[in-house]
């Protein structure tokens, strides 16, 4: 059992529970007197609610509760991470297909299901806005009440916000060649295999809430506010989610379930169906118009980018997605003049939220594809054009932000080498290469507490959410390494706001860096206490004692931590406690509120085979290389990068919401919404990392796990173009859509 495990891949902490089925997810937790809840929703995208009659439902044996807006405080409490616009339950109007109008709770699932069917809603279907064109049409209805945004010149439109980022003077820039195209990215959904689940129970004079939430402390604030309870009376239990990908970051139905529990005086549990998760969370679709100016020698002159993201009926975190996602739209290149105009556009659709990549994949698809077009226009190799313009370490490629923080050329060259860039391909095959970049967190705050117990074993408290990325294991590895104990002696406690100190959130691939540094700090504090203890016991100066990786080094000998502890704690026993805090404060003048803690940088190269008769695209070889600083657990890093690559193939080749003429989603559920199966993998998938130990995290690590998704679409699209000569600008590249593009190509 090795103690020094950074850079090795010990088995996942929490892995045993996952392979035995004993790990409890929210839906597996059953409180003794829990009521089962069901939602009542309408079969249309938008409606005016005329009346709701739950009397028949309430007469059903076993039904204990039926709540509508009328049962909640007036004015209706609203919440949302950016704007408090989302009502706890629909009041007066529903604004997307699936917005709940009532909740019922009963002793059994059967009774709850039947009760939901018996709630009679009288409503008038209203015209809904669910495409970009419709949303931007001045004649279309407004999704949100302008009164919600007083003093906002955009309040009389469906544009929630406009983000302007840029430098240099695009209007005045002249370039030898200008390439202009429009690209679209579809509406897709997270489709975590664990549907969202929520449970709430009165807890003395407070409340306990169980949720599949990625941000327990955000949720705690929301519940505290809508219920009017102090934070100390709101306890959030956040078991490891069964996949999050961003879709479980922010409060959705927890406030409603909390009200229901308090009303019923009993625990209430709501588990969404998979179909309902499609109606709860998604990624923003996007239309991107790109004008790229380039010189004949390949130097980028300007990037002029307009991105319209179609977000949902409530803002959730969608506008932040638009701002942060579009911010790096010009890519990891030195571009003298850049103009980015990104708009979040409201619609009567499922509120879009965070989703792995956070707004970057949409613009990356467009701008990287357009860079390929520019390369073709000047007859330059598509790898060469990227290397020529790529930012080098220290370049202020975004003038007012963190300079390029890696030797990115190394990553690109490695990917090119692995894919065999430049080597000949048989007919029907094509190759593409693309670069992806994303800002890590721009602000952040993570506390950690570590306790070194009397026998040398360790407890780590970390408020991060481990939804598969392996955070729990990484923190255990750090503590194990610093305090000299094997992983089996480290317990990591997460997911309980009453016990675990504050962590702002689990997102933006931040946790290894921010929480990891806090865990490290806490361990360092314990090491300092151990040094003082050893110095005291041996009559030495503290300065002459060094504690490193669980070994106490005195000038003349070494002692094991546990021996120092035993002697130092004495007959009363006890423990040593360390605290860590990693804070990244806001920079108010920065367009994003703060500069990037680090960048996720990735190069993806794909070799694809296209069957021109059917439109089938098979990724034959898929290479993904990420600049990670240090892989604290190399296997976990590979798992994340492989997983991100495969997820990227989903929106590239097969995923999209299908709507009917009135804004209802047609393909809810698993039968007609297709995600990659084990038979949809690249014939060869290779993921590698570049480790220069140049990150701000423990041992030189950077955050990772989104990078390998960012530019999958552009790499595959480029491969298809290379194979067929046809540039397809709209995702997904389903067989039918590829076939259609090939049919429409001009005869060669």
């Amino acid at each position, binding site marked *: 059992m090795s103690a020094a495990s950074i850079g090795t*891949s010990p*088995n*996942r902490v*929490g*892995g*045993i*529970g*996952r*392979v*035995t*089925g*004993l*790990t*409890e*997810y929210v*839906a*597996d937790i059953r409180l003794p007197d829990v009521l089962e809840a069901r939602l009542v929703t309408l079969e249309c995208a938008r409606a005016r609610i005329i009346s709701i009659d739950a009397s028949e439902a309430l007469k*059903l*044996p076993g039904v204990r509760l039926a709540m509508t807006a009328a049962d909640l405080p007036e004015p209706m409490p609203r919440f949302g991470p950016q704007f408090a616009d989302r009502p706890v339950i629909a009041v007066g109007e529903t604004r997307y297909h699936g917005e709940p109008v009532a909740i019922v709770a009963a002793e059994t*699932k*059967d*009774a709850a299901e*039947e009760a939901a069917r018996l709630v009679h809603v009288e409503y008038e279907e209203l015209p809904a806005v669910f495409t970009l064109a419709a949303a931007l049409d001045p004649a279309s209805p407004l999704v949100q009440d302008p009164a919600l945004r007083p003093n906002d010149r955009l309040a009389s439109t469906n544009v929630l916000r406009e983000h302007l980022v840029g430098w240099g003077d695009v209007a005045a820039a002249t370039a030898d060649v200008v390439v202009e195209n429009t690209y679209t990215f579809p509406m897709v959904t*997270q*489709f*975590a*295999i*664990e*549907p969202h689940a929520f449970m709430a129970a009165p807890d003395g004079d407070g409340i306990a809430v169980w949720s599949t939430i990625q941000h327990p402390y955000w949720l705690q604030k929301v519940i505290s506010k809508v219920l009017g309870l102090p934070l100390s009376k709101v306890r959030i239990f956040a078991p*490891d*989610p*069964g*996949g*999050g990908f961003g879709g479980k970051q922010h409060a959705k139905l927890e406030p409603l379930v909390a009200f229901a529990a308090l009303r019923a005086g009993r625990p209430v549990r709501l588990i969404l*169906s*998979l179909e309902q998760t499609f109606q709860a969370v998604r990624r923003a679709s996007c239309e991107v118009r790109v004008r790229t100016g380039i010189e004949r020698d390949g130097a980028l002159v300007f990037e002029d980018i307009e991105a319209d993201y179609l977000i949902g009926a409530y803002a959730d975190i969608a506008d932040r997605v638009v701002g942060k996602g579009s911010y790096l739209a010009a890519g990891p290149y030195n571009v003298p003049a850049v103009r980015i105009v990104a708009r979040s556009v409201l619609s009567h659709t499922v509120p879009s939220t965070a989703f792995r990549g956070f707004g970057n994949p949409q613009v990356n698809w467009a701008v990287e594809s357009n860079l390929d077009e520019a390369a073709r226009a000047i007859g330059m190799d598509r790898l060469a054009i990227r290397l020529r313009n790529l930012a080098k370490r220290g370049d202020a490629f975004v003038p007012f932000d963190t300079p390029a923080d890696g030797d990115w050329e190394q990553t690109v060259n490695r990917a090119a080498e692995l894919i065999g860039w430049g080597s000949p391909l048989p007919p029907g095959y094509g190759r593409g290469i693309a670069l992806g970049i994303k800002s890590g967190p721009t602000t952040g705050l993570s506390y950690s507490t570590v306790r070194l117990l009397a026998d040398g074993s360790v407890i780590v408290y970390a408020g991060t959410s481990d*939804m*598969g*990325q*392996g955070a729990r294991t990484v923190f255990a590895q750090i503590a194990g390494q610093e305090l000299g104990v094997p992983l089996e002696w480290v317990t990591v406690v997460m997911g309980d706001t009453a016990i675990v100190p504050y962590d702002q959130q689990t997102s933006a691939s931040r946790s290894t860096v921010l929480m990891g540094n806090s865990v490290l700090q806490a361990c360092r504090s314990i090491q300092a206490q151990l040094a003082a203890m050893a110095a005291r016991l041996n009559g030495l100066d503290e300065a002459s004692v060094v504690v490193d990786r669980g070994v106490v080094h005195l000038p003349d000998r070494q002692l094991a931590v546990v021996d120092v502890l035993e002697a130092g704690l004495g007959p009363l026993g006890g423990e040593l406690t360390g605290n860590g805090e990693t804070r990244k404060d806001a920079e108010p003048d920065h367009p994003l509120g703060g500069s990037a803690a680090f960048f996720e940088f990735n190069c993806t190269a794909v070799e694809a085979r296209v069957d021109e008769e059917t439109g089938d695209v098979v990724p034959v070889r898929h290479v993904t290389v990420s600049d990670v600083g240090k892989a604290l657990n190399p*296997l*976990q890093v*590979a*798992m*994340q990068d*492989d*997983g*991100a690559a*495969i*997820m990227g193939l989903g929106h590239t080749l097969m995923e999209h919401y299908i709507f009917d003429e009135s804004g209802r989603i047609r393909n809810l*559920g*698993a*039968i007609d919404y297709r*995600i*990659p*199966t*084990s*038979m949809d*993998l690249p014939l060869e*998938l290779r993921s590698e990392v570049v480790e220069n130990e140049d990150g701000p995290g423990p041992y030189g690590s950077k955050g990772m796990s989104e990078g390998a998704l960012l530019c999958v679409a552009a790499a595959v699209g480029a491969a298809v173009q290379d194979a067929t000569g046809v540039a397809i600008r709209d995702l997904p590249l389903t067989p039918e859509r590829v076939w259609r593009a090939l049919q429409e190509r001009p005869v060669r």
Partner: protein
Amino acid sequence: MSEMVRTIPIELTVNGRRRALEVAAHHTLLEVLRDDLELTGTKECCLVGECGACTVSLDGRIVDSCLVLAVEADGAAVLTVEGLAGGGRLTPLQQAFLDKGAAQCGFCIPGQLMSALALLQATPAPTREAVEEAIAGNLCRCGGYEQIIDAILAAAEADER
């Protein structure tokens, strides 16, 4: 109009243990395993037989338990993920899943294990392609397929030695 739900007595063997239950005709095997027998290792996701999170072995064959009525399992032998490890020790397949990093969020893993077990019982030395086909009915959104397949192949190899 809701009447008292009639229940039907069934007897089945679950993970080697005889169980006698009263079940409603319309309750699925998945619901009965999770809610009545409190074996929550088998998961609920799509409920239409597409995702495989609910995979169990029924009379020696893997099935989506969301598409089986509990009454249909009367007299049958059911094996779930909880029935794999015996005496507190992991099976070589479970150990391989751990060693190869097959589990990320873990939600699909019980189903993957059941499908993997069925494959290895029928085909002790499968090709990679055969493994891909065998688990094609088990969706993994974390995209852990490569590691899951590696784990299954490693388990196959371990059995061979």
